[in-house]
């Protein structure tokens, strides 16, 4: 198994010492908070022109999290670069020569991404929530209301899961261009489109972003056949599948 704490410290040193880590995570924060604030403010100002149906299913919490749609792309870039940079530079050979136990390497990278992204995501989501609710004015909700705290934490967990899933994909596809070329269009375009196509959407509902959205909702989404708890497990299953796939290929392939 190798010396896990040493490898963890080493991976932390790697992540800490490149600028892309801090830039991508800052962008994730700014975009998520900023876009959430804009959409919350616009919703507030357009409230009178909304249909009754929209008003009835209005979810103040998830409205303030609208920015995650774009902010998650920065999280994806961060996680993909954690592993992809090593492959594009050839540094992966130095890494695997120093840490030949590949499971130790993958677990250390996973833990580093987790402990870095989770606090950033929690801060981002709480700031997003409070700012969004303030801008929603009378239509906002409070952190003490039913299920709201769960939804805020759920949104942070979703961002963290997206990072771990991207790390797994990064291990599978190795080249950052490939990983980003798959993940960015998937989360930005393909999944949102497919989840609105009849028939296809019964499958698309189980995509990680749709499942994650349920975690961040207070008012249930009638078009999706499961709730926030199932959403959490669906997301976890995606994360596990990507990391296991990443490990299987890391173990088998030549570096």
């Amino acid at each position: 198994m190798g010396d896990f704490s040493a490898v963890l410290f080493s991976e932390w040193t790697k992540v800490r010492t490149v600028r892309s880590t801090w830039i991508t995570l800052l962008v994730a924060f700014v975009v998520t908070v900023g876009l959430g604030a804009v959409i919350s403010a616009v919703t507030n100002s357009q409230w009178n022109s909304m249909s009754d149906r929209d008003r009835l299913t209005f979810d103040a919490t998830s409205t303030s999290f609208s920015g995650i749609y774009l902010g998650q792309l920065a999280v994806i870039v961060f996680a993909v670069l954690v592993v992809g940079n090593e492959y594009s530079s050839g540094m992966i050979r130095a890494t695997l020569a120093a840490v030949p136990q590949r499971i130790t390497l993958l677990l250390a990278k996973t833990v580093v991404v987790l402990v870095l992204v989770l606090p950033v995501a929690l801060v981002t989501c709480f700031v997003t929530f409070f700012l969004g609710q303030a801008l929603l004015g009378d239509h906002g909700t409070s952190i003490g209301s039913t299920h709201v705290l769960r939804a805020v934490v759920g949104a942070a967990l979703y961002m963290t899961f997206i990072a771990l899933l991207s790390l797994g994909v990064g291990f599978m596809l190795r080249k950052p261009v490939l990983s980003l070329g798959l993940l960015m269009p998937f989360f930005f375009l393909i999944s949102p489109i497919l989840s609105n196509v009849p028939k296809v959407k019964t499958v698309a509902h189980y995509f990680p972003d749709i499942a994650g959205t349920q975690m961040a909702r207070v008012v249930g989404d009638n078009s999706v056949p499961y709730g926030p708890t199932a959403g959490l497990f669906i997301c976890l299953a995606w994360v596990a599948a990507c990391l296991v796939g990443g490990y299987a290929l890391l173990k088998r392939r030549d570096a």
Partner: protein
Amino acid sequence: MIEVHQLTKRYGSTLAVDGLSFQVPRGVVTGFLGPNGAGKSTTMRMMLDLDRPTSGSVTIDGRAYHQLHQPLKHIGALLEAKAVHPGRTAYNHLLWLARSNRIPAGRVDEVLGLVGLREVAKRKSGGFSLGMGQRLGIAAALLGDPKILMFDEPVNGLDPEGILWVRNLMKSLAQEGRTVFVSSHLMSEMALTADHLVVIGQGRLLANLSMNDFIDQNSHGFVRVRTPQPEALLDALAMARISTRPLAEGGFEVIDGNPAQIGDLARDHGISLHELSPQRASLEEAFMQMTADSVEYRTGDIHPSADGTAPPPPEDAGVARTGAADSGGWGAQWNRTSGKRRKES
């Protein structure tokens, strides 16, 4: 000690490494020599468990690489220059490596000083020249103060000063009792540094011997002869069963002859000599002959080659100038001797 046992690597239908077995002796510089594409880098990557062998094994101090606890303290490797994140400083690159094997951070400053990068330690490695990148890679290899060092083409792309530095470093590492395993495609470079040679071509072992043995076996001399009466001398040499080959400038070389014997022969036949000079084939030539059959992509030969079925033009010119009575026979003999030499190697 590194032991390579029946190591084989197959990529699809091509065998990159083919049943390679050798040992790297302790405490000396071993040159790992072969033309480009011979499988040197693949072998080195398999030694470090980076690539998975199709079959066979490598052991380092009796254990597989992945079984080594803190491998950087056993074996340090430089595989490719500038395989670093361009945005990370030289110091931080060495720092993460050190931490992965519980090497104290103070050692980072030490190796940076050792390779002369202390002044640029806080600079991003993306701005480094190839030579600086190579030094950083060597610093990384030295980080764990390992007993075994492995360098893949360390002088590639370096300026003369850098080459000299790497050469001296390898020698001093061996003098400290370390095992140094260094790959190269240049015999001339190895002749200056290596004590032992492992030569491969097309993934197969061609030679495994000490540098001295290689020199003794491969630098057999020949004698360059010039005479105003070439026909007479060639006849005399042919009668004495001494083989020759023509030179472009009009003289010819006597293979395996010794100057005294040729001089005596010339006097006996009343032939005057204008030149009689012993020559030694360079090690580079010996290496090229050894690997001639295993070069991946061959360039057209500039010099007459024994491979061609039709005699190439320069040989015709040589024959015409010597004015041999039976030019076909002469050419045939030349071909035969060359063929024999190739088979011997």
